[in-house]
């Protein structure tokens, strides 16, 4: 297990230490190490026993408080382990093709390895503080990878935005940690999760940790960084911003699910559904391929979070699992399209935005394999029956239904919204497929487009296959398959009606979509396109005030504090000048007057003094006499 954990780090270190001359070595070592790591993860997964396996590692202690670096593998983390290593391996392989010829290859692979390592750290850690450590580290590697093409201002901005948004969430996480530390006195998840009694502030603690999730998993209101993060290389988007890192929030929620109080869960569910709806609407009108995918990711994550809020953590994990594969596949195939179009563009020196779906169309003839993979994974995203997405969404809907039947009426709004999201998902997925692959070729007509190289095609195909239903269950309409059994041993409530309703709902949506796009209709709602002006609001509410405040404090420093200091010094200097003047004219003046007097006196006495020994004697005797008279008196 430790091997699985550390190999990506080894890959990172190798990449970091090698010189540029041997950069090609990395393209071999990095995927190879990931492969070994993946095999290890699969072995761990299949040898999983009911009891969580813990690897005790000491870390440090302060006073009597011990912070351990324990690693633990249980059902949830084992699944996550597989997801991370598999997707990471495939992305590594894919990247060797996608990033071929990039001059900063070394840094890229180093960060990719580092990311995988830290992501595995989140998965395995059995200590909240340790999770936080890796939580921040994935943020760092995400920053580095988004900003990989650091000549591009947009990429750099996006990287910074991503990191800062994550930081805001992490600050919340940190507050949660503080509350837990102050009230529960331990970070060991084993102890925390086992304790039955509620400690004080528990709701706020869990909500604060949820803040971290909001940041990392791009939930409302901090989700706008994720679409921007698409400025990074596409494999990175696939790995980090679709399959693993953003799912870490969901993972964390289900990992510490036992800590959440009902009130906290309600908040979680609400945030989740708001995110899901808003981002689904935004996805509907975007024109950039990757942004559509990004918003769809946010929306799916929102659904997962909602599921957790509804108490169906296992369903959320199931969806996470399936989503990781099909979304990675979507991204990778979109990346493949972008990659080949770019290369074709460079050959013919034409220029247009290859990521804009309005420029694309009819690519299914030129890129059949990619189209195939994209269609498969797109169907999974849309939740069409016989695909993995359908099954896991089914699980979520079931969970939501159960939850809604148990509680108050507002929960039905959540359920309805979830169905709405599912409907919109079909719409935008179909829109994407339609615009890219169907219809007539638009700007790409003149280009000589060939399929992407094998190293890129292979991962896409594998992932596309993995988005079929059988990877999680035998029965395509019953989510209660072998994977779900691991997550939730025992019989689970399930009713077939839900599957039927869901299936017909999706098909209805499909029909709508078909009608809509065949006629060439396109949504163009400004508020959706700008993601509800959230960025604008942030700028207005936070960025500008902070900058204003900063320049204000700067002014305080320079003008007020230094001003006081300066005026103090000036006052002193002025005083010194006054004293100087006083010295010069009054004191020196009087001294001068005395001097002048004595000068007169002197020149008078000079006549009988200078150099005349006898007068010296006289004066000394005169002095003596005066002294004696004074004595006498």
């Amino acid at each position, binding site marked *: 297990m430790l091997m699985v954990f550390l190999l990506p780090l080894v890959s990172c270190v190798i990449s970091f230490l090698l010189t540029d001359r041997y950069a090609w070595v990395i393209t071999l070592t990095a995927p190879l190490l990931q492969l070994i790591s993946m095999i290890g993860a699969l072995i761990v997964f299949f040898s999983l026993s009911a009891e969580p396996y813990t690897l005790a590692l*000491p*870390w*440090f*202690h*302060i*006073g*009597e*408080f011990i912070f351990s670096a324990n690693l633990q593998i249980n059902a949830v983390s084992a699944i996550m382990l597989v997801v991370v290593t598999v997707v990471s391996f495939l992305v590594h392989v894919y990247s060797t093709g996608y990033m071929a010829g990039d001059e900063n290859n070394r840094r890229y692979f180093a960060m990719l390895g580092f990311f995988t390592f830290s992501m595995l750290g989140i998965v395995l850690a059995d200590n909240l*503080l340790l999770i*936080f*450590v*890796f939580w*921040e*580290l994935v943020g*760092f590697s995400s*920053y*580095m990878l988004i*900003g990989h093409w*650091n*000549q591009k*201002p947009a990429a*750099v*901005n996006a*990287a*910074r935005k991503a*990191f*800062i948004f994550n*930081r*805001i969430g*992490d*600050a*919340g996480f*940190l*507050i949660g*940690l*503080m*509350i837990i*530390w*102050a009230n529960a006195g331990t970070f060991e998840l084993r102890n925390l999760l086992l304790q039955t009694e509620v400690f004080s502030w528990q709701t706020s603690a869990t909500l604060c940790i949820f803040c971290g999730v909001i940041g990392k998993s791009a939930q409302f209101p901090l989700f706008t960084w994720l679409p921007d993060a698409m400025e990074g290389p596409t494999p990175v988007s696939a790995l980090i911003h679709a399959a693993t890192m953003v799912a870490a929030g969901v993972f964390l929620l289900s990992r510490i699910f036992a800590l959440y109080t009902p009130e906290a869960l309600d908040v979680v569910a609400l945030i989740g559904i708001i995110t899901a709806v808003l981002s689904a609407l935004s996805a509907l009108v975007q024109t950039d391929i990757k942004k559509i995918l990004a918003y769809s990711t946010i929306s799916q994550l929102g659904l997962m979070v909602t599921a957790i809020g509804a108490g169906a953590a296992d369903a959320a994990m199931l969806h996470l699992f399936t989503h990781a594969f099909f979304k990675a596949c979507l991204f990778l195939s979109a990346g493949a399209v972008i990659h080949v179009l770019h290369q074709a563009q460079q050959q013919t020196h034409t220029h247009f935005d290859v990521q804009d779906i309005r420029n694309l169309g009819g690519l299914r003839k030129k890129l059949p394999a990619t189209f195939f993979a994209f269609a498969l994974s797109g169907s999974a995203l849309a939740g069409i029956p016989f695909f993995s997405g359908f099954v896991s969404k089914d699980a979520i809907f079931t969970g939501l239904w159960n939850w809604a039947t148990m509680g108050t009426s507002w929960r039905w709004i959540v359920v309805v919204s979830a169905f709405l999201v599912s409907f919109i998902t079909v719409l935008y997925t179909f829109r994407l497929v339609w615009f890219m692959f169907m219809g007539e070729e638009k700007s790409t007509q003149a280009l000589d487009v060939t399929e992407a190289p094998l190293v890129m095609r292979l991962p896409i195909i594998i992932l596309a296959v993995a988005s079929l239903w059988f990877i999680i269950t035998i029965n395509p309409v019953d989510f209660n398959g072998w994977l779900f059994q691991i997550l939730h041993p025992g019989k689970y409530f399930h009713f077939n009606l839900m599957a039927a309703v869901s299936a017909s709902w999706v098909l209805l949506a499909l029909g709508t979509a078909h009608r809509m796009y065949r006629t060439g209709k396109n949504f163009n709602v400004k508020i959706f396109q700008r993601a509800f002006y959230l960025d604008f609001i942030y700028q207005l509410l936070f960025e500008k005030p*902070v*900058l204003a*405040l*900063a*320049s*204000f*404090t*700067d002014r305080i*420093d320079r003008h007020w*504090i*230094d001003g006081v*200091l300066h005026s103090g*010094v000036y006052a002193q200097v002025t005083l010194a000048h006054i004293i100087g003047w006083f010295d010069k004219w009054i004191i020196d003046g009087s001294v001068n007057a005395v001097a002048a007097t004595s000068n007169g006196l002197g020149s008078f006495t000079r006549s009988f003094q200078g150099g005349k020994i006898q007068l010296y004697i006289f004066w000394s005797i005169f002095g003596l006499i005066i002294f004696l008279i004074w004595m006498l008196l």
Partner: protein
Amino acid sequence: MHAYLLSLIIFTPLLAALVALFIPARAGRYFRLVTLAASLIQLAILIIIFLQYQRGSGAIQLIEKQNWISLDLGSWGILKAEYFLGVDGLSLPLVALAVLVMLIATVSSWSIEKNVKGYFILFLILNCAIIGSFVALDFLLFYLFFEFMLLPMFFLIGIWGGPRREYASIKFFLYTLLGSILILIVMIGLYLSVNDPASSGQFVHSFNLVTMSDPTNFISFSVLDPNNPWSIGPLHARMWAFLLLFIGFGIKLPMVPLHTWLPDAHVEAPTPISVILAALLLKIGGYGLMRIAYPIFPEAAINFSWLVGLVGVVSIIYGALNAIASKDLKRLIAYSSVSHMGFVLLGLASLTTEGVAGSVYQMVSHGIISAMLFLLAGVLYDRTHDRLITNYSGLATKMKSYFAFVLIGFFASLGLPGFSGFIAEIMVFLGAFKSALLHESLAITATLGLVLGAGYYLWAIQRMFFGPFYFKGDATKILYDLTSREYLMLISLALITLGFGIYPQPLLDFINPFARHFAETVIATGQRLILTP
């Protein structure tokens, strides 16, 4: 042999300065070698000290105690000052830090060209004074070293500094002098109030800090006697004394709003001096609070912990905001120092084991990280003599390994896990939130500092290192990548901060007993004093 280890480590540089005094000024190269040799000898002594030191105990070790001044003042009692040295879990890490940073700064001083002799002699004196003030346990001796530090620093900034060096050095001097005066007042008060318990009959006024820390040693009805009923204005004299010490050391720390000397001094000082200033001089403030203000006035410390904590939080956020606004790289780093030293105050105010340990850890960690940051700023300044952030762009492509170290430095400073700053900050946060003395909102507000920290560092990286390459300054300057000397310094610092960030236990082994003992004693003594008015 081991009885004189501390004296040796203090006076080795002074000896070297003496040697340097006799080298003719023309022989420029030898001054560096002498200084380097002194630093290496100190390092060797430091290793011996570490071997001799017993980690488990929180007690003061390697004590050296000699009578220094013993003046019979008749009815005034006896003035007694001792040559009293010792290290504990607080001072040993700081001494180690000092030796290390001095070594780095020596190497970094290699490029000094102007009046080499004077520079290195002042440098060695500074070295002596800094280490001396970390190990002195007699107030008078401490104060002596503390003041001794001021003058070399003044000249080092004022002569070898940048264009506005006179202004900066005078500002530095005025501020620190003000602080010193406040400390002096308290010192005199303490001197009048403390009686050596070993004395018989006649009062023996001692400067011994250990003696001062025990409230039973105060003479009845003296100024700072905890039991005397008088108050000066609204507060008891001891409260005033604590506040004076707090301001005095706070200027050094620096705390908002007494921090404005720092950016100027940093900006104008030559690189090695900036390194020393940030890495060591600021620590003396924190060290003084922990060594003097807190143990001697525990009840005042408890009483004012809200103030200390508040000033800490204000420093954190205010420093970060100012860093956002600053356009000068060194200024930015200087303000980040203000922000980071706020954590020291916050942790100290919490008076919990975690908080205090975090404070000490933060001092060490900030010492290393800020040394690194200033070296990085110095690298750029060496090349172009231009520190304006907006004058650079796209350096990442031009100076690759420099960029790598900047990333390490900046991210270490903004508290990325895996670097020592993170451990320190998290401990401070945990302690501050848990503490019964501080309101929870303080710790919560302080987390804003983390966000802002990310903001200014990333913004600076973005502006300077990303985008297309250009340099707006003097076009004749060549931006070449790191030289091997710079590489050596930076990589050693980076490895240290990484090591302490990933596995903090070795350092915590030293700090733990101290932090625990400190927090417990201050709370216990303070509460006893509060309860028995």
